[in-house]
Structure formats: structure tokens, C-alpha cells
């Protein structure tokens, strides 16, 4: 009997293990985006600096498309420095980054870009067509497009620097 008593605390362990398993599996009901694997919808926009930017012109490069807005708090504020950092590291390595500003005001958007010192091209999605084509229903959302122009990753919510770099490296390693 005296040894058997320790079965009581030990009985706790299987329950904990089960819960731990539950913690590490994906949450229920998550739907992978149907856009992943498909060709990215083309767009042609005019940047805040006045220059044109189009997806077709970026074929052959790994493209990071980020949808943002100045009123998107706190997520866009958290990921903006991350994006700028990643851009600085990869701009000469065959990566393109395009920021697409949705449903925002021109001066608020410019202020946002200035605050975070964006040096990659950003354009306002006038008419909201690009957001619709990409199935964007919230900001921020970030898409990773490979060298062949296919959407490979979609991240809803603020991007994580390490994850983003990991994806970019992976796509850079692929043949054109």
C-alpha cells in the first residue's frame, strides 16, 4: 500500500501530456488560404513618390507584398520596423517589397511611412481592387510571391521578422 500511494500523483501525468499535445496541435477550424499556390493577381499602382509599380515588372524576384493602413493599430505599428529592416537586408539580393496602403488618407499614410522610414515603394490601393483580388479582409496582411509569380505564403496579422526572413531565404534559393 505504501508504494501504491504514489500512483496518485503519477496519475496526473497522462492528463498533462494530453493537454500538452492539444496545445501543440493546430487550433480547430483554421482554413488555409485558397490563394496559396496560385498565380498572384497582377497590379499596377502609382507609388506615393509618383513612380509606377507593377507586379509583372518584378517577375524573377521574390516579392513581399504587404497590405497596411495608418489606422491599423497596434499590429501595423509593430510590423512596420520589421518590414523596413528586412527590406534593408534583402533589397540588393533579388527581393522586392511593395507596401499597399488600403482605405486610408493620403497625409496619414505619408506620416506613417515617414515615422517608420520606409524606403521600399508604397502605393495607395485606389478603388480597393488589389485588396479584393488578394482576398484581403483585414490589415495587416502579407503575401510572399515566388520568382515565378505564385503566391507561396499568406500571413494575416503582424509579421514576425524571423519567420519572414526564413520564408524569403527559402524562396530565394529556388530556381527562377
Amino acid at each position, binding site marked *: 500500500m505504501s508504494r501504491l*500511494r*504514489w500512483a*496518485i*500523483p503519477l*496519475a*496526473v*501525468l497522462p492528463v*498533462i501530456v*494530453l*493537454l*500538452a*499535445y*492539444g*496545445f501543440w*496541435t493546430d*487550433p*480547430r*477550424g*483554421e482554413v488555409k488560404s485558397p490563394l496559396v499556390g496560385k498565380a498572384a493577381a497582377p497590379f499596377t499602382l502609382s507609388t506615393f513618390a509618383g513612380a509606377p509599380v507593377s507586379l509583372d515588372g518584378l517577375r524573377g524576384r521574390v516579392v513581399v507584398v504587404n497590405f497596411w493602413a495608418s*489606422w491599423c*493599430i*497596434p499590429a501595423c*505599428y*509593430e510590423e512596420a520596423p520589421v518590414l523596413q529592416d528586412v527590406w534593408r537586408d534583402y533589397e540588393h539580393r533579388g527581393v522586392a517589397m511593395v507596401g499597399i496602403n488600403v482605405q486610408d488618407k493620403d497625409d*496619414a499614410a505619408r506620416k506613417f511611412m515617414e*515615422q*517608420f522610414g520606409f524606403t521600399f515603394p508604397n502605393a495607395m490601393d485606389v478603388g480597393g481592387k488589389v485588396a479584393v483580388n488578394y482576398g484581403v*479582409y*483585414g490589415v495587416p496582411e502579407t503575401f510572399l510571391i515566388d520568382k515565378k509569380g505564385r503566391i507561396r505564403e499568406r500571413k494575416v496579422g503582424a509579421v514576425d521578422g524571423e519567420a519572414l526572413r526564413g520564408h524569403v531565404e527559402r524562396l530565394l534559393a529556388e530556381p527562377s
Partner: protein
Amino acid sequence: MTLLIGAPEIGYALTVVALALALWGGAAAVTAARAGRPALLASAERAAVGVWALITGCMLVLVHAFLTFDFSIRYVAANTNRGTPFYYRITALWGALEGSIILWAWLLGLYTLIVVTRYRRRQPELYPWVLTVLLAILAFFLLVMTVPAPPFERLSPVPPDGRGLNPLLEDSGMITHPVALYLGFTGFTVPFAFAMAALALGRTGEEWITITRRWTIIAWYFLSLGLLIGGWWSYHVLGWGGYWAWDPVENAAFMPWLTGTAFLHSVMIQERRRMLKLWNLTLIILTFGLTLFGTFLTRSGIIGSVHAFTQGSIGVFFLTFLALVLLTAFSLLAWRLDRLKGQGELDSIVSRESVFLLNNVFLVAASFAVFFGTIFPLLYEAVWQEKVSVGGPYFNAINIPLFLGLLFLMGVGPLIAWRRASIESLRRNFLKPVLAGVVAAALLRMIGVGNALVLLAAGLVVFVAGTMVLDFWRAARARRRTGDGWRAATIGLLLRQNRRYGGFVVHLGILVVALGVAGSQAWSLQTEATLAKGEAIELGGYRVRFDGLDASEESNHAKVTGTFSVTHGARPVDVLQPAKKFYPQEQTPIAYVDYRLGFLEDVYLVLGDFARDGSHATIKVQVNRMVSWLWLGGLVLTLGTVLAVLPDRRRPA
């Protein structure tokens, strides 16, 4: 890099210092407990006071930030904006994960203070251990506030405006629900701490139970209240006209309530007959563990639900802590196993001990069934790699028979004799109430009630009420024989035996809730239609006419309101205005329910779609019967609890 000191840094510093103090206090308390060092104990007490003061400071910093629109704190920016009304800016404090942890810690700190002032002299031996346990748990929550869920993260650069509060939380129910629920959860920490202290010292008698009796009742009450308020919120905000969906988050709060109720009853057996020592200790450990599990379930998002919150590393922290708590507590239990042999025995199946035991079995079975149903999807996926969900039908199928059984036991328990009930006493106590129950069910059947479950529930309710009336009347009559008038007899009885009759009133509250549940499930009606202006729809004798749409702007949202006139026959009943609220930070509009509360039935309207020119509106109409009885039952529960915790008149408190 310049050193920035603002609200986020101050708040964070307070949190870290509080954590350090809690750790120091816990270490000091346990050393004082083992080595009997009064100076260390005093230091631990001061640490406890300091911890609470610091947590209060954290709350004040956060509230101040909310009130002054200080969006440099991420939590403030994520949960309010410049349009959020004043009072919601304060209650946004517990609107999301990080803030709710602060609330928990603050309430626990408050309880710790009460323990310090109350038991420092009264229980000098148990007290240091109790303090250790409480400070250790406080330290854990402070650790969570420091590492995985810090409320004082800085947002840089400071955004011009915030995101705003989840509109579903802009409601009176959501102001009170978390507070009541957490008062209940943290309330069970104190009996748990005393149980651990009793085990550590080997004082496994009834002492720890007697001391914590009121704590248990009050914690149980707040947990019940929290569940009812949650049901109320679900009913009048979420727009589906229901109050309970067996959602994992709801189940997470229900399980500790079930084991807590079992505990509340089984300790009475230990007090009277010195039995069930091991069982009671196990129950309080399980209850406390379930409160932690409930928090873990809600806040880590491991089980998908309509209310799933964001995932993060917080799950790891909670799971590890839960594992530590359970392993430590059950190890203590195993260590003292030989001192936990009961001194009484179950003499007969027909006895109060047996009824209470059955009550416990049913409640624990219900808790296990709910637990199993909640984690079953996980299990299934682990073994068969397929995703499944377990819905309402399972939970109803298990719990309805168990609760009907509990209703029956609720009537039998308070009156049946201890040890062994004779046939004569059974007849004397139960014949009339049983007859009353049967007659009531028969009458209902005669007037057309066909639903078997409702008949059974109604019969049981009348039976239980009958036993209470019989008992009270007999006792009052006995008092009258000593010369009191009726009024003096009844009041004297209530005050003298406030524990017993407080319990009766609480049971009465449960009966009211049970009737409300039965009635609303069996008799509620629902329909949906699109109406042109002037058109009406009929349901349950009510006529609902669409009068028009209107648009307006509030401080933080825009609103489209539909006006509907409700009449019953020729009599005008009300003008209801369900609306759709458009919050800028929400992807879709949020429906705002309007309803008319009635004693027997509520008329409940939800605005669905509407035509842009205001000519048509799609409306969902419900006539919900007896839902108000749930809230009424809550009121009765409150009265019963107050009566039950009154200080004893017979001996000094």
C-alpha cells in the same frame, strides 16, 4: 539610445518588483513555517501587503493610461480608442488577456490580505503554510504578467488613436461577469491553501474545513453568479436568444462549479461524521486545478471555439504551473495518506451520508463528462487523426439525467436522517412532498403540458419545495410552542439556524433556475421574416410590426436602428429598437438585440439585414419563455448566500 521612462516602464517596474516581493515572501513564509521564525513570517506578511499595493499600483497606472488616452502602452491602444465611452475605458482593464491576469492577481492579493489580517493570530500554525501557498500562486500570476503576457508593452512610435474595445464587451454584463467569475475562481484558492497547509502539518482533521467554510460558500456564490451573468450576457448580446451553448469556454467555468458544489456538500459529511477526508482533499485540489485549467483553456486557445482568444506562449506557462500544482498537491496527499482514514462508516444506503455521497458522485460525474466532452476532440485527433467536435446533444444527454437526479437528492438530503433512516421517518418526511410532486405533474399534464422532461422537472421541483416547506413549518411550529408568535418564530429560526435555512434559500434559487431552464427549453418560439414597412409578423400571440429604420452616430460607432411595435391582441406591449452597430475596427456590423423582459416570457428581436432605402428589414423574432426565472433564481441565490454566511448567533464568530 535614450532612456525612455513613461507609463509602460513604470508599470513594468512595478510588476517586476511585485514578482520579486512575492518570491521573497513565499520563501520567507515557507522557511518561517518549517523553522518557526516569527521575524521571517512578519517579513512575508509585509511582502504580501507590498505585493498587493504594487498590483494596485499597476492597475492604477493602466487605468490612468486608459483615461488619458496614453497609447504608448500597447494594451491601451489595442483595447480602446478615442471614441470609447468613459466607463468602458475603465472596464477595458479586464477586456483582454493581459488585463484579466492583472484582475486575477489583484483579487488574489486582496484575499491574501484578508487571510493575513484574519488568521495571523487565530491560526498560528496553519497560517505560515497558507501564506506560502498564496504567495506562490501570486508569484506565478505575476510571472505571467512579466513574461508571456506583459500588460505594459510599449508601442513605438505612439499611434494617434487606438483600435477600440471589442464591441461585444461594451455591455453591463461584460463589466461584471469577469469580476464575479474571478472572485469565484480566486475564492477557491483559500480553501486550497488551507488544505495544503493541513497536509503539510499533518493536521488532517476537520479544522481546515471549519475555518474555510465561509470562504467556500462565498467563492461558490460568486462562481454561480459569474456563470449566470455570463448566461445573461450571452442572452442579451450575442443575438441567438440562448444563454448556454456548451462552448468550451463556458464548460471551463462550469467544471469547477460542479466540483465546487460537490465539495461544498461533502465537507458537511466530514464535519459531522469525520468521513471522506481523502475525498474532500481530492475535491478541493481538483476544484482549484480546474479553475487554473479553465483560465488556461480560455486564454491559450488550445480548443477552438467561438470565443477563441489569441494563442501565445501563455499556454506553456499555465500548463507547467498546473502540472506543478497537481503533482505537488497530490504528492502531499499521498505522503499523508495514512492520516486520512475516516473515523466513521457508512451505515446504510438510506441515510444522509449516502445521499450526500450520491450528490457528490453525480456532480463529479457531470464534471468528468463535461471535461471529457471538451477534450474529446483532442483525444480523437491524437488517435485517429481526424478533426471532430462534440456538440450540445452530448452534453445535454449526460447532464439532464444527472441534474434531475440532483434535484431529487436536493429534496431528500436535508431531511433524511443521519446514519440510518427508518421507514417511519421516511414516511413522515417525504410522503406529503412526494404526493405534492406527483399531483403537480398530473395537473400540468391535465392542462396540456406534454413534454415528459418538463413534467418530471416540475414534479421534482414541487417535491423539493414541499420538503423545505414541511421542514421549516414543523421547526417554526416547535418554536411557537415555546411562546413566540409566528413572525418571531420564523425570523428567530432563520437567524438561529442560518446555515441550514440559508442553504434552503440557495436550493430554492436553484429550483427557480431549474424551472427557468426547463420552461425556456421546452416552450420558446422563434421565427424569421423580411418585412416591408408597415408589415407585421405574428408569433406566440404577439404581433410585431416594422415601422422604419433610422441611422445615427455615436462616439465610437454608427448605428442603424429599426423600430418595431409589439402588440398582444389589442394591447400595445412595447416599441423595440434592435440595431446594427458599425464599429470602424470591426469587419462586419454587430447586431444589437432589443427585447422586452417579462416574468413569464420575453419578446426578443434581432435585426438581420435591411434594405439600403429603409423599405425592408429582415427580423428574427423570438418569444422566450421563463428565461427571466434564471435571473430571478440568481437573486434568490444571493439572498440565500447572505443568510448562510451570517455570523453564528450561538457562539462567537
